[in-house]
């Protein structure tokens, strides 16, 4: 266990998040992202996935939320009080939900805006070239207004923009949201490539468990602000509860039966 801890780039130890000093949004989430690993955080709407990511990136602050208990360690250091822009400099980058590209800037300018202040012109150009290699579609449209890119292109731009910050941990909040399945496959493939080639650790938040479990090594399941299950991707895919509630049900279900006998999620009772 101790060797695993030193190998983690990120570890959350039973953190709680309070909004407006009253609303407890997550109640004890613990998780680990191994250095260079790829981990998924799964769960349904409102389970606390986005809040967990915001606690890690520090963006909670702008929504009047705060971590009220527990500790977040990045690279072994506790980062409780570090402001969000300094966390980015440390190597944590959060691709927020809903793409949120800078709509009135071109893709090229989106990338420039995200480059660290200290980065040299030469390095910026190299980085941009590397990102356009991952996302050739962006290169084609680099001079158009980003607000008019398609959803898939905007998601690619959001990821590329995050790569510009030189992250060591990339956190993505629902990158598959509203995208056609072939695009999800394309983007997840690129994430895997980035993870392999750059050694960037990835924490992926998804409702689309099926797609996510294909590319990660481990997954955490979060429900009502708590981690209720943690296992390897293989084991999670094989788990009957996961199959039923997150992977679209088992085979040959008789829908008539479901009406009479609705199986409860075991871990909630």
């Amino acid at each position, binding site marked *: 266990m101790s060797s695993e801890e030193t190998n983690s780039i990120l570890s959350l130890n039973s953190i709680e998040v309070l909004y407006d000093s009253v609303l407890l949004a997550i109640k004890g989430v613990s998780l680990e992202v191994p250095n260079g690993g790829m981990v998924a955080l799964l769960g349904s709407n409102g389970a606390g996935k986005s809040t967990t990511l915001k606690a890690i990136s520090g963006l909670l602050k*702008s929504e009047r939320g705060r971590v009220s208990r527990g500790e977040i360690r990045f690279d072994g250091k506790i980062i409780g009080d570090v402001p969000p822009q300094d*966390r980015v400099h440390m190597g944590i980058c959060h691709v927020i939900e809903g793409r949120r590209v800078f709509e*009135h800037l071109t893709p090229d300018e989106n990338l*420039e805006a*995200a480059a660290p202040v200290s980065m040299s012109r030469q390095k910026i150009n190299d980085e941009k070239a590397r990102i356009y290699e991952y996302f050739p579609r962006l290169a084609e449209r680099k001079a158009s207004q980003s607000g008019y890119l398609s959803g898939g292109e905007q998601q690619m731009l959001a990821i590329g923009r995050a790569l510009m910050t030189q992250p060591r941990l990339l956190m993505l909040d629902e990158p598959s949201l509203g995208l056609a399945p072939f695009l999800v496959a394309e983007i997840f493939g690129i994430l895997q490539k980035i993870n392999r080639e750059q050694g960037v650790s990835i924490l992926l938040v998804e409702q689309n468990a099926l797609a996510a479990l294909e590319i990660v090594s481990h997954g955490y399941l979060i429900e009502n602000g708590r981690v209720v299950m943690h296992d390897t991707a293989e084991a999670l895919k094989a788990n009957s509860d996961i199959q039923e509630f997150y992977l679209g049900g088992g085979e040959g279900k008789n829908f008539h039966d479901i009406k009479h006998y609705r199986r409860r999620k075991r871990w909630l009772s």
Partner: protein
Amino acid sequence: MDWVFLAELTVNGAITGLSYSLFAIGLVLIYKSSSVPNLAQGGLTMLGAYVVLAFSYELGWPLWVAIPLAAVIMFFVGLGIERVALRRLAGRPIVMILMMTLGIDIFLRGTTLAIWGGAPRPMGLGVSYDPFFVGPLLLSRIHIVGALVAIALFVAFMLFFRSRQGIRLRAISDDYMASWSVGISVERGVGLSWALASVVAVATGVIWGEIQGVDQTLSLLLLKGLTVAVLGGLDSIVGAIVAGILLGIVENVGSGYLDQMVGGGSRDLVVAAVLILTVMLRPHGLFGRHDIERI
């Protein structure tokens, strides 16, 4: 119809209008970064002029020292206002921030009145009042200087917004949350836009101080500056320039003919009509940014 009279009104209107643009550029800078029309821009303009006078008139230093020095001081005044008064309002309803800028304007007017009194003082820029003819047209020299300064600042800011720092400011004006998520310091960006707007206020204060003398009425330029900024679209530097020229022409030509009928004083009427009509007919102004909605 007297064509020379009309041409003279038009050209002088355009030049005067560019001096309004000068004011509007300051408004646009702050609106771009924080989506608030800065009602204190008039107060800053007046303060800028008084700071210049504090060096040139009271200490007797030459203007070419006093003006840059005032620009530096106002840069930090702008940073300070953002830091002390506005940063804590981040995320609050816009109307709160608007009220804050109004409060700052009143505060600045009161402060300058207490320190320097209310008697108008000359700026002493030394621009000649001799008639200046271009062909048959009689033009105002000081307004030409104002127009040139406006154009110079326009070019400078167009270049600035293409620089890396400028791109970051535009990113901030697009999306605070996304800016934070990639490590852009939103607070510092908004502070910088206040600082730059305060420097623009010095330029505006010097030009308009020369035109109408330095006293608290300088802050009333806000009406015309705001009209120009709204007509131009509030977040567009190009808009501020084009709208300034347009408003100047409409005001000068409109009042040039109206005054003969009503016996004077129709200038503000024309300006107010432009403001009201813009908001009614084209709320985004001429060059304002529309929020992009893909379908």
